[in-house]
Every structure is written in structure tokens, then in C-alpha cells.
């Protein structure tokens, strides 16, 4: 290899390491599809669209930002929550998602997508403006992940029991928008 070749190789190596390390350092604010495990997911996703292709509620979208995260899949729970069908995990060809049986007990144990954050000052029930309970009705794990308390039957979430599917965020009425599902990684690191 001549000197110019060596120089190009060194340049490519430096650029590769720089881009790779930059991608590793990133902390995501996106809710990823079920079983996506933070950094390992982002390192292994080849953005093939197959998870979005099989998603029955079309909850999975692809990142459109101008960053290294371009086209990585995420869930915009405010518009569409995950119905926990686990088809995306089965469709993934790279192991970025781990195949998981669509069994409600297994899902409850192994899926930890995000944690619910409730703004009580916006919640209809907590404000005492009425009885809503929509989040409770759509929750796949009622009385476990969310309980109703008090005379207004206000929701009380248990982040440890919640899988983070985001159906409650989707269901929360537009006048309230009191629930946000944050990616677990963004909350607990």
C-alpha cells in the first residue's frame, strides 16, 4: 500500500470510529418497539422496515430527523399505541428485536418499553372535572399497571408493572393529554 492509500485508510478508520462512538453516546427520546434494548437495538437495526410492515395498528414509524438515527423505528404513542402483538419481534431479521411469544403473561414479564408519566393537573379525574377512566379501559393490564383510586376513580400508575405500550397515551382525551409514555432508557438510564 502506498502512502496515499495508507492515508485514506487512516482517514476512513478515524471517520468510522468517530461516527460509531457518536452513535453510541446518543440518548434516545424515542419509544422503541417492544424488546428493543437501547444501544444494542440501535447498533443492530438495519432499518429494513419489516417491523413496521407487519405492525397491525401501524404504530411503528421511522425516524425522519437529520441525525444518525434516520429511519430507526419508533412508536408515537400519542397517535398510535402498541397492541403488544409481538409480530415486529418475529419479523426482525437481525436480532435488534428479540422474538417474543404474544402471550399476555410473557409480555407482562419481558416487555419494558417505557414508563407512564401522568400530569395530574391535566387529568380529568384528578382535577375533579369528571370521571374518565379511558386509560384504565384500554390498559392491557388493568388493576395491575393502573388502578382507579378515590371517588373520582382517578388513575394511579405502577411503573414497575407497566409494559409501556402507550395505549393509554393514545386513549387519553385530546382536551387532557395528561399521559406521556417516556422510553425507559430516558428515565432510568
Amino acid at each position, binding site marked *: 500500500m502506498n502512502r496515499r492509500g495508507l492515508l485514506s485508510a487512516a482517514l*476512513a478508520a478515524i471517520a*468510522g470510529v468517530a461516527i460509531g462512538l457518536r452513535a453510541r453516546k446518543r440518548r434516545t427520546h424515542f419509544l422503541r418497539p417492544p424488546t428493543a434494548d437501547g444501544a444494542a437495538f440501535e447498533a443492530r437495526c438495519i432499518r429494513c422496515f419489516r417491523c413496521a410492515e407487519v405492525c*397491525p395498528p401501524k404504530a411503528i414509524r421511522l425516524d425522519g430527523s437529520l441525525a444518525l438515527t434516520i429511519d430507526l423505528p419508533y412508536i408515537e404513542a400519542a397517535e398510535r399505541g402498541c*397492541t403488544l402483538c409481538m409480530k415486529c419481534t418475529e419479523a426482525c431479521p437481525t436480532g435488534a428485536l428479540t422474538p417474543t411469544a404474544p402471550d399476555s403473561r410473557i409480555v407482562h414479564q419481558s416487555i419494558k418499553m417505557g414508563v407512564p408519566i401522568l400530569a395530574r393537573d391535566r387529568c380529568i379525574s384528578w382535577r375533579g372535572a369528571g370521571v374518565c377512566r379511558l386509560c384504565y379501559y384500554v390498559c392491557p393490564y388493568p388493576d395491575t399497571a393502573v388502578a382507579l383510586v378515590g371517588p373520582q376513580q382517578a388513575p394511579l400508575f405502577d411503573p414497575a408493572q407497566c409494559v409501556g405500550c402507550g395505549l393509554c397515551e393514545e386513549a387519553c382525551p385530546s382536551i387532557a393529554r395528561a399521559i406521556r409514555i417516556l422510553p425507559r432508557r430516558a428515565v432510568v438510564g
Partner: protein
Amino acid sequence: MQPADLKFSKARAYQLARRAVLFSSLSLAVLTPLWRLGNIERESAGVAAQGTRVVIADRLPDVASPMLGAPWTVRVFGIEFMDPLAAIGLAVAGGFPLGAWLGVLLPLVLVAALGRFFCGWLCPYLPLLALSNSVRALLARLGLALPDVRLPKRAGFMLLAVVLISAAVGGTQLGALLYPPSLLGRELFRYIFYGTCGTGALLILAVFLFDTFVARAGFCRSLCPGGALFRILGGASPITVKRVAPDCTACTACDVVCNLGQKPMTDQIDSGCDRCGKCISVCPTGALHFGIETTAKSTSFALRKGMR
């Protein structure tokens, strides 16, 4: 002489076969998303019919799917196929299981035997490249000669190295953003599913503008990381374009028609040849044909030949 002035008079069956293969691959790339969209909409309808919005999938109607995904990584009747660029990116990132290589084997064997033929026979970017060449020809006819910058061949290998190194340090699979087949397959899916284009469309546009206004097929020739990988893997391919010197009139038609900067007229064919056979088809005297080259003796020689 412009590429657009040349007529394909020879080896018509070869060009017909190539176009048929390309057309079927493009049709699949468009029809699969349409069909898949129909599938999930039927599934959602099934869910709605059950009268509940919250469903855990053992209650979902399962729609059998003989096909899943775009050519970048496709499952056909339960068998996974993967583009070698994706597979190697995953392998260097660690944990690509040995069994998964089975689906990469077929493309690898084909590339080893036929060189970078994917680029000339299957790449979904080819129609856009043809359009780019037409724009170039049109502007040339209007008297606006566009530049044809010859980037060094190593640019593509450097880009491939960046892709693999950034994957190896556990960062990201950059190949998905720099490889037109991946970009195009995904954008087609996205457009059909959501009716929108993503950042990928901008990247494709950038490639198109580069090929049109900076260098003819410049991305394919000297930047595409997939093309660079196929050059290395297909370096030992024995198939090459041969010339019958006494029949050659040195008319330069073959050199002009080649998108990838090969020079069949002076027997200068390297691993950059995509076996599209256009040089053979335009040769007015039929002096060119595919032949077997037997100089590649060892793998290391082949690798070096691929890098050249």
C-alpha cells in the same frame, strides 16, 4: 459520441433477460408493500370486528405471509435472505449467528462467480440512473456539457470501511443510509404505507443529483459501499468481457456506453464491471463477448484484484 446515440444491436437476448430480471425485481419492490399493506389492514379490520381495541396477539387473526420485506433483507416462504452488506455490517457488530449466514450464502456465491452483477441486473436505482443519464444527454444536446469527475476508486472502499468500522464499534448500521437499494426499498414501503417520504428520499435525491451534475454514474462507480463490497467479494469472478482484436474497429462505442468507466476497447476491464453487457450489445462488429478469465489463482490475488 453520446451513450444515447448508441443502438443495442447485438446480444439482444442477454439485454432482454437482464431487463426482465430488473423489471421483476422492481415489480416485487412495489407489489410487496401494496400486498403487505392490504394484509395489515385486513388484520386491523378483524380486530375492529371483535369490538375491542386492545388485543394481545393470540387473539389476532394471523395472515399467512409467504413474503416479507424488501430485497435488502427478505423472507420468502420462511427462508431469510440478506444483502451481503447488511450481513457483514451485522457480523462486525457482533452476534450474527452462524445459521443466519445460510441466507447470505446464495448472494455470496453468485457474487463470487459473477462479480458485481447485482449492480447491473437487480439494483432498484438503475431506472433513476437511466433517467440521470438521459438528463445528462439532453443537456449535452442543448450545449451544456456537464462535468464527469473521476473520483479515485478508493473512495468507495473508504466509505465501506467507514460503514464497517462504525458498525464494529457498536454504533450504527450506516450501510442502510448509504446504499441505494436499502434506501429505495424502504422509501417505497414508507410511501405506500404512510403516503410520505422520509430523509431517505433526500439521500436518494443527493445521489441522483451527484450522478447527474457531477459525475456520470459517479455514485455507482466510485462511492457505493455495496458496489465496493461486491468488487472485493467478486474479485475472483472468472467472467469478463473479451475482445476479438482483429474485429475491433476502435470506434469507442463500448467505452462510451459503459456507465462504470470500464474500457473494453483497450481490454481494461476490472472488478468494477457489472456484467450489464451493454458494451457487447453496442459493438457494431460483434468484436466483444463474455469469456472466462483464468488468471485469478488464489484468494489473496483475487482480493487484491478486487481492490484494484
